[in-house]
């Protein structure tokens, strides 16, 4: 039970990563791999600030802002200097590796015993169950602390997804969606597509760094290596989600799909690990899952063309 709850919490925290990846890859169609640097950047900034006794909520917000700056840099490299998306992302990501080491001062930081964004909910729940560290839920014994983490993760994902849903339907957000769809049209209608892309990548990486900062607090440590392959993990959520809800889904439904995809993927991994999967094999498995998810729908698509492309 405890493992299930922890798995769900991690799934929800990584859903925020998925939302960021969704913005870059799906909304803009921009293959942004800055995430491998901006995710650990969020973790590093949050951890370093928490160690420095900064309020964990402020620390987490600053972590998100730092990710936003990283995304904006990738956007500027692409639009201003015409560097292709992958290379722009690689440049930012590589530079961030050093930045992350500098921010942390060493290659990892432990946060055990430090107050995090999860702490207030933990104290609240503990006082509700009159000080006990465990309680029974559905006939099982669960740690109050784990429940609190799950609740906080859920609330954060809820806030992020509702905010994103609202944003993508504003004038600016819709112009961003249109930019990914048909940039020439947006320019012809007076939209500055360069600026829209830079802001969009900033938003995407802010969410990704936020996710990194939250994961560091959930796991009580930040590690400079924690970003390796994270983009593939985010893509897995996005692609699984898209498979669940369909490629032509509306803004809101796609967002729900990403969250479901992230949680589902975490559950599958937890089950696999329980059945004896070597954690070292995880990245390979993740890559294979993404590959399969990428190949299967397009293979199906050859049989059943997507309505979006149809012409009468």
């Amino acid at each position, binding site marked *: 039970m405890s493992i299930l709850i922890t798995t769900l919490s991690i799934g929800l925290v990584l859903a925020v990563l998925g939302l960021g990846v969704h913005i870059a890859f799906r909304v803009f169609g921009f293959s942004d791999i800055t995430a491998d640097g901006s995710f650990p950047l969020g973790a590093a900034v949050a951890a370093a600030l928490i160690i420095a006794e900064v309020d964990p909520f402020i620390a987490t917000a600053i972590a998100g802002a730092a990710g936003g700056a990283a995304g904006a840099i990738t956007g500027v490299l692409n639009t201003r200097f015409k560097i292709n998306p992958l290379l722009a992302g690689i440049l930012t990501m590589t530079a961030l590796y050093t930045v992350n080491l500098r921010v942390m001062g060493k290659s990892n930081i432990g946060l055990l015993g430090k107050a995090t964004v999860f702490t207030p909910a933990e104290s609240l729940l503990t006082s509700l169950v009159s000080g006990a560290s465990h309680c029974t839920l559905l006939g099982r014994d669960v740690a109050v602390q784990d429940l609190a983490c799950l609740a906080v993760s859920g609330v954060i994902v809820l806030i992020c997804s509702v905010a994103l849903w609202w944003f993508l339907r504003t004038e600016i*957000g819709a112009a961003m969606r*249109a930019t990914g*769809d048909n940039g*020439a049209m947006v320019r012809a209608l007076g939209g500055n597509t360069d600026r829209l892309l830079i802001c969009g990548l900033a938003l995407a990486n802010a969410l990704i760094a936020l996710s990194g900062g939250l994961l560091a607090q959930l796991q009580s440590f930040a590690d400079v290596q924690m970003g390796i392959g994270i983009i593939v993990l985010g893509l897995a959520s996005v692609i699984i989600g898209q498979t669940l809800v369909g490629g*032509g889904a509306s803004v809101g439904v796609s967002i729900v799909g990403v969250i479901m995809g992230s949680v589902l993927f975490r559950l599958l991994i937890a089950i696999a690990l329980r059945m004896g999967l070597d954690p070292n094999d995880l990245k390979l498995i993740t890559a294979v899952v993404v590959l399969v998810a990428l190949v299967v729908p397009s293979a199906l698509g050859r049989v059943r063309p997507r309505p979006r492309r149809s012409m009468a």
Partner: protein
Amino acid sequence: MSDRPSPSAASGERVQLKEVFKTFGVGTANETHALDGVALEFAAGSFTVVIGTNGSGKSTLLSAIAGTFRADQGTIAIGATDVTSWVEHRRARFIGRVFQDPFAGTAPTLTVAENLALAESRGLARTLRPLLRRAQRDSWRERLVAIGLGLEDRLDDPIGLLSGGQRQSITLLMATMCAPAVLLLDEHTAALDPKSAEQVIELTQRAVDRYRPTTIMVTHAMSQAAMLGDRLIAMHSGRIYLDVSAQAKQGLQASDLHALFSQMRREDRLDEATTAMLRAQYS
């Protein structure tokens, strides 16, 4: 909306090109003088039809006005404003544009309503207000009823589900709904079946009559070239070699154009191959 000209007011502004040059692929084997010193003035509210062989620079002319690229040399002014150094999205406040590709003017995953809403805020600063506001729906519905394709009930469908002709009609609506100073049409009916093409041409004529933008239309369809507009320009190798203005264009027929081409051949302003190409194209 209050800073917009009222829909019935003539919105056209004079467009002036002075010695505009544009060369693609400078220094390569494919160096092309797409615009070779074009000097043109389009009067406010005029409707000019542009013809010419493939690769003669017609699209490049429209792109130079729209600001898709910067001209290598020369100046471009819209009304009293010198827009030579303005980038495309900045010039958009003056310009409505429809391309040949019926899918180029709309964003497929956005709904019909969202596409219209984006067009409605052309050239205005975009904000964090919701894009779709209930108050506008009725006016869009009315406009869609007016184009008579039964699209008024599809406001909430992704526009990618619509046919090419339907999308091109909506693109035209989007290009004209804010009463642009300049309307640029680049073979906007070429990819449509004859019936849709006819509908779009009719919509074009109606929009032009209503807002009187300074209209520049490229076409390969002889019937359109003869029937529409009050001025005819023919291009070749990045230059204007024929400019038929108001009176002369009245009653101009396909055969007259052929005669014109032949006459120009005699005057040695065109080579034989080009003349043959023009004859074939405008038959």
